[in-house]
């Protein structure tokens, strides 16, 4: 699940650039390309990302990312490790 959060974050930060390149996401997440494509497919199926006209987060994806951030913050406050 952590990988989904990381991928969503990278897509969001990369979306500020002109074009989101899958290779950039792969380099930053450090996962094999075929597995990354699998994750991307799952994220798309969940309605968290869209690739038309450009790869970016959907409203649902942004909401998920916000909540994911809050949960990580909550865990940090509780002193719980997450790796």
């Amino acid at each position, binding site marked *: 699940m952590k990988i989904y959060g990381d991928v969503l*974050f990278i897509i969001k930060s990369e979306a500020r650039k002109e074009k989101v390149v899958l290779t950039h996401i792969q380099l930053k997440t450090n996962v094999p390309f075929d597995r990354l494509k699998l994750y991307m497919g799952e994220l798309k199926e969940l309605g968290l990302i869209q690739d038309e006209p450009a790869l970016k987060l959907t409203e649902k994806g942004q909401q998920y*990312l916000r909540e994911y*951030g809050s949960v990580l913050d909550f865990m940090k406050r509780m002193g719980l*490790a*997450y790796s």
Partner: protein
Amino acid sequence: MDNLVLILAEVVSAIICFILVRFMIKPYQYTGESRYFGLPLGFVFLGISYLFMGFALFSDTLIFIEDMKWLQLLTQAFAFAFLAVTYYFSKQSSERKRLLWQITFAGMIVALVVSYLIVFVPPTFVLPSYKTVDEYFRIFNIILALYISLQALRSHAMKPGHKTIWFPLGYVLLVFSQYSLLVWSLDSSFSAFVGAHVLRLMGLFVFLFVSFHTFASSTDVTTKGKVSDEEV
């Protein structure tokens, strides 16, 4: 009148615990890691244990009171055990540790069922008096709550910040609450008894405040930096 105040304290504690479950389940929901499942389970058990004590205080039937007190004792011990195990396993995420967590969790469920059977299902065993068992359970709870507090404090000490001090503080208050109950059990000190309830409520309110504050000020991680291990 005194009983009414105590029942109210137990009911309020239980309600807070059940509200907290809503927040405590989120790490499990969002990470999908079963090692965090002990967190909501711990608070559910804690809430139920306060309800049992509330029922014991409310009831007039002696046998019912005894049963409720025993249930409270067992349930509360398992609540602290679930929380402590969660903190222990939160540090590790290897396959081996995942398997170990599943074995531990299964073992705890078996222990839970067996302990309830021993106490309640006939033929009941000859058990030591409730007071003696209560003292041992308080010591057990103190050790576990102390372990949780130290884990949370260690995490805070590694990256000090005003946000990360509140949860350890809440756990420390629960440790002192258990200690006060032990003192009350040993010397029947009324102030220790009242203090235990006040400290417990303070601890639970700290948890509640921090939880609401975290999710109310729901920040966008993208404005803070990459979601990574450093974040946690």
